[in-house]
């Protein structure tokens, strides 16, 4: 089993190295969350939904800089977040009269992340668009736009000769992406449908 410290979980998520971290969260937090939910009348599917939702919120909070790596207890944070989301779900579904109180933990102000997630069709098209830019360009845009990394950090991570080189490359990639976007009518239609929805 992967073992990553709580501090490294936050730092790695923030730097875009999420694969191992999410695997780690699945191995460590999911069994506890499943046990909690199943013991309270939930199904395994409920446990899966709550866990995925919890990870997504945690992921977003970390990448938005809302969670500090200092003094972070990730298992407890994940568990409390999952409990609250489960209580939310129970009350929303009104399956049973739930007496549990929310845990003293503020995690419910975030919008549902799943609303931001793309359906498969759009995701496939976006993948095609980003792939057409090239792997390096795609990675660069991901680090700048999603992870909000500085050019200095990106230059080190992606082994550019310097910040200026990274910055120039970044804007060239942005330029290509916008051009691809403008040329891709299908994608624009899909996005416009989403906006209408």
């Amino acid at each position, binding site marked *: 089993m992967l073992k990553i410290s709580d501090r490294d979980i936050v730092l790695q998520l923030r730097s875009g190295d*999420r*694969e191992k971290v*999410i*695997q780690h969260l*699945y191995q460590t937090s*999911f*069994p506890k969350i*499943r*046990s909690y939910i199943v013991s309270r009348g939930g199904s*395994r*599917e409920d*446990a*899966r939904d709550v*866990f*995925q939702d919890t*990870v*997504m919120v945690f*992921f*977003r909070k970390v990448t938005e800089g809302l969670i500090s790596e200092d003094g972070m207890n990730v298992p407890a944070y994940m568990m409390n977040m999952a409990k609250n989301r489960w209580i939310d779900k129970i009350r929303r579904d009104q399956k049973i009269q739930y007496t549990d109180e929310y845990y003293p933990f503020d995690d419910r102000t975030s919008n549902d*992340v*799943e609303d*931001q*997630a*793309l359906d498969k069709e*759009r*995701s496939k098209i*976006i*993948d095609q*668009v*980003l792939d057409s830019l090239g792997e390096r360009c795609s990675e660069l*845009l*991901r680090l700048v*736009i*999603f992870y909000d990394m500085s050019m200095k950090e990106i230059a080190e991570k992606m082994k550019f000769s310097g910040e200026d080189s990274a910055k120039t490359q970044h*804007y*060239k990639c*942005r*330029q290509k*992406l*916008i*051009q691809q*976007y*403008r040329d891709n009518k299908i*994608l624009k239609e899909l*996005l416009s449908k989403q906006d209408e929805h």
Partner: protein
Amino acid sequence: MSIELKDIELIDRYLSGSLDAASKEAFTTRLQSDASLQQLLSDVKSTNELVKANEFAKVQVQLDSFSYDAAPWWQSNVTKYLAVAGVAAVVTTAVWLSSSDDKPVPVKENKTVVQPSSPKGQQFSVVQPEEVQSATNTKPKTKEQSAPVKEDQNWIAPSIVPDVFVPQENSVPVLSSTPTGPAGVPPQQDPVVSSPSTVKTKVDSSNTPPVLLTPEVPVKKDFYVQLPNQYWVYPDYMKNGNLHIVNESGAVINDLTLNGSNESWNGADRYGNTVPSGLYFYKFTDADSGKIYTGSITVVY
């Protein structure tokens, strides 16, 4: 419509709030009159959202790839299979133990090598078939070694005829037979060796060297109990320890703790009810030596 890199950078800084007041004022002024800049601002926002959404989608894909249906280890099929295999192994072992040696008369498939120890056939000792073969070249064992076996015979029900009998004197040739005679009496049928380790054949007594084998204290022993008048009197080596009795299905019949004062099992299960006729298996764990004794108990009424 061309896309200027400097405009992308300007929009980036505008969106991130890093423009100073003067630059921001200039940008908003230009934005109001420049349609291409308005379009570029819109496209930058849209593509930024695309990249972000795509990253979330990838996380979702990774989350979906996990096996959420896997049951906890105690509910997994593998665990169930192992449990079933374990039970099957225990039952198989118990059955094997009960049929491998020291079987009472009614079990005809037992492999036996019988040899009278006296003209009247009153004294027998038990030996494994393999031991019979090796015994042809072994010296007679001491009296001390054979003592426990003799004691065991004392509390075996009279109707029991052990699987393998070995004479107490080495001058008597080895015979083999399927015992069908009365209890304690060597059978008179044609001698036959029937064993996994010995080919079924008649033994020529003239060519078989004399054998005298007295096994050590048996760790596997079968008993026969005629309820309700006859209890299973524990052998001497079952003094202090735990006696575990199960039925043919492996269900626990009784768990008894012997402390030296117990002498016999009256056929009662853990609830005090007398068990029905049948074959039962026991395991006795000696509290002092840790040695384990196993075997069967045939209960009839």
